[in-house]
């Protein structure tokens, strides 16, 4: 390894190469042991085909294998924001699964196979799932799919659990980074899931096929070396997995949030328009690149912000809201909004070996502008988080902030207080401004029409 290269800590499993960061740019070093395969894949036209179909991240070769350094380095195009499968809604995980199967089918037609099939190799780029691990391909020698089990545990089991049990069960992937074990998934699914033949085949019966001893392993090796796995069988396997995934429809869960703006009368038309204009004027002056819309609901304001920036990371704890926003972006071909399901009270932590394989939300960079609209009362009153803690968190993640203060007399706050004792004596506008002034300079403030709410624009100190 070159002395100046900072190898990223999550890139240690594959001997074919590793990812490193230099001068803020991402590079992938291809080790000598993988060079032959790399050139075979490249010369076959597979990279070009997958990149053309927007299934693989583009890359350029930045060094040749010559002299004393036999390795080569490629520079993949940078992804604006790294997200993880446990933050995706049902349809995002489903689309990532279908993209993985499509890549496998195309790779087979070129004589290659995917050696990994987990969700962490997929990222959302311009609204579509793409493979980011360029070194995931091996020559296919008519063997069974080595990543079959990994695919089932990383995609099929979590999707089935989200569909049949709870849309929040993708969170199991924080505990099981290599995928939810088949046996566990099979046990958790209801009986009616067994009525689906593809699920019965790839989850329940597959779960029963667990090796016990050397005899089974020996049998597998014997089969592996002695018999060929035909192309029809491989494509049939992919077709059957596609069917299993496509049969799973988004879960229907009642949510009070997914038609919050439409069904409730929180804002008058004048207040909503005033809020929109306030945000629009700031965006046009600031020209931010990346915006985080925290507590985005169904993304009313993410959609407005998307017109004036490179990417909006739209975060909400409610799955139905995130799912709806993703579906809307797909339908309307809005490519610069990345909806993510995450509870800000308990955001994604650092995970994996040495807590450095998967990054926490805070480690994934700060944004140019954060939107925290109608969020503060949920954090301070519903979750008991002190105002100053909220200000410190927002000061850590964002250079600029648009935040709405919702006072105690607001009907929505009154609603929150009907079911609990009012212990929030310091929850008022003066305390809010005082707490946020420790981390931000208040640049603009406006009282919303027909409302007791105030909207602020702040810049970090």
């Amino acid at each position, binding site marked *: 390894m070159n002395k100046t290269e900072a190898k990223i800590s999550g890139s240690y499993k594959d001997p074919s190469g590793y990812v490193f960061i230099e001068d803020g740019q991402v590079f992938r070093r291809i080790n000598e042991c993988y060079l032959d395969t790399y050139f075979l894949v490249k010369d076959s036209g597979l990279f070009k085909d997958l990149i053309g179909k927007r299934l693989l991240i583009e890359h350029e070769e930045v060094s040749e294998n010559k002299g004393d350094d036999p390795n080569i380095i490629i520079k993949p195009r940078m992804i604006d924001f790294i997200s993880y499968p446990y933050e995706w809604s049902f349809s995002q995980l489903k689309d990532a699964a279908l993209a993985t199967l499509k890549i496998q089918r195309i790779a087979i037609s070129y004589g290659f196979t995917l050696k990994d099939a987990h969700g962490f190799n997929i990222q959302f780029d311009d609204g579509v799932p793409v493979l980011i691990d360029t070194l995931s391909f091996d020559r296919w020698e008519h063997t069974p*799919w080595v990543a*079959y089990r990994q695919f089932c545990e990383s995609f099929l089991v979590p999707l089935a659990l989200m569909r049949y049990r709870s849309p929040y069960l993708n969170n199991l992937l924080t505990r099981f980074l290599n995928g939810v074990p088949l046996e566990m998934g099979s046990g958790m699914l209801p009986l009616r899931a067994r009525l689906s033949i593809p699920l019965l085949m790839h989850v329940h019966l597959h779960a029963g096929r667990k090796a016990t001893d050397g005899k089974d392993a020996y049998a597998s090796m014997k*089969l592996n070396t002695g018999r060929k796995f*035909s192309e029809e*069988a491989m494509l049939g396997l992919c*077709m059957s997995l596609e069917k299993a995934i496509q049969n799973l429809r988004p879960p229907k869960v009642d949510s009070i949030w997914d038609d919050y703006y439409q069904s409730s009368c929180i804002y008058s038309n004048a207040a909503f328009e005033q809020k929109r204009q306030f945000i629009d004027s700031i965006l046009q002056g600031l020209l931010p690149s990346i915006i985080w819309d925290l507590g985005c609901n169904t993304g009313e304001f993410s959609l407005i912000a998307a017109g004036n920036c490179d990417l909006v990371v739209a975060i909400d704890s409610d799955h139905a809201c995130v799912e709806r926003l993703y579906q809307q972006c797909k339908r309307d071909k809005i490519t610069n909004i990345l909806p993510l399901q995450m509870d800000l009270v308990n955001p994604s932590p650092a995970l994996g070996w040495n807590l450095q394989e998967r990054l926490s939300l805070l480690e994934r960079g700060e944004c140019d502008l954060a939107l925290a609209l109608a969020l503060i009362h949920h954090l301070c009153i519903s979750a008991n988080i002190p105002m100053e803690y909220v200000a410190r968190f927002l000061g850590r993640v964002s250079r600029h902030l648009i935040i709405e203060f919702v006072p105690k007399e607001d009907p929505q706050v009154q609603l929150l207080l009907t079911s609990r004792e009012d212990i929030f004596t310091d929850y008022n506008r003066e305390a809010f401004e005082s707490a946020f002034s420790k981390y931000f300079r208040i640049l603009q403030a406006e009282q919303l029409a027909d409302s007791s709410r105030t909207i602020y624009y702040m810049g970090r100190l």
Partner: protein
Amino acid sequence: MIIIKTKFGDRRRLMLLAVGPFLLMSQASAYIDPGTASVVWQFILAVLLGAAFTVRLYWTRIKDAFRKKSDKSEK
């Protein structure tokens, strides 16, 4: 597949197909890569899924051929 010839021949064969995979189930061990079991399972599925794929492929070709014929006759 083993064929048991009895007066209930066909029915017995069907039952064998239905319960066969359950008979092959086994328990977990931390020292054996679970992927090896998936390899065996894929070989078991291969016959079924390969046949399904081939049938679908030919069915699509037949449909396409008829579609082309009807397009030509319409012209």
